[in-house]
């Protein structure tokens, strides 16, 4: 994910801004990290360069 993309994405739940925390970069691209909602505090992982903005109830680890 490119850092500029922060301008176009928001929290899927309350549409507020996301804050980026980079864990790993590769040639300027963010391959691992976390996006955290500035309002509700929900955290969204960046996995293999793809931000996972699925709401928490739709993630694999969500209780069925």
């Amino acid at each position, binding site marked *: *994910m490119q850092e500029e993309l922060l301008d176009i994405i*928001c929290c899927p739940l309350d549409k507020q801004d996301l804050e980026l925390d980079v864990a790993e970069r590769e040639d300027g691209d963010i391959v691992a990290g976390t996006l955290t909602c500035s309002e509700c505090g929900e955290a969204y992982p960046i996995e293999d360069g793809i931000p996972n*903005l699925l709401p928490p109830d739709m993630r694999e680890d969500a209780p069925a």
Partner: protein
Amino acid sequence: MKGQEWYQADEIAEAYEDKRFSGGGRLIDRREKRAVLEAIGPVEDKRVLEIACGTGRFTVMLAERGADVVGLDISTPMLQQGREKARAAGVDEHLQFFRGDAGRLPFPDDHFDAVLAMRFFHLADTPVAYLEEMRRVSKDIVFFDTFNRFSARSIYNWALPMGSRLYSRWEVNSLLDEADLELVGANHDFIVPYGFYRAIPDGLASAFRSVDRAVSAIPGGDRLSSVSYWECRV
């Protein structure tokens, strides 16, 4: 949402394009790409979002034509295929992929010039909710296709692995009303359904396609179409 688990498997994602768009399927691929370009093109410098972008068939094409494209899908394996394709085409600077839910899009209101969803609504359990979300993030165009009731699609539909929701024209019109979208163009095609084109040998596929188009061109002939393309404005 149908397909939610189905498309998560690596082997399904890797085989997706070969299975659907090789051989006679190429005709389908070409027709769908034309439908997209006619509805939203020219796309240069436009912001485009595709819902359920899968392996990036349309997103890569749009990025190659100069659009700034975002592809959203629920499946990581499908998105990984898309990323590889974008890199191979040299458009990865203009094409970004996200994993997300079509019902709760992670984008602000009115952000995109065009929002499209191809082969999505036949899997949708709550179509109005998805249309409303597409409308929210688009400031101009919303484009999607449906598989039709009262067509040959009904005949083989039961055999599909996850079933498929079919729509009548009346149903689509009432969905658009509910989602407050204005229909500006509709095209109807494929009296012979997709599954048939994939099943027959290449040479025969183009012959059938000619007959298919000829029948569609007869007044009222398109009533039998299995696929419809709907171009709407916000």
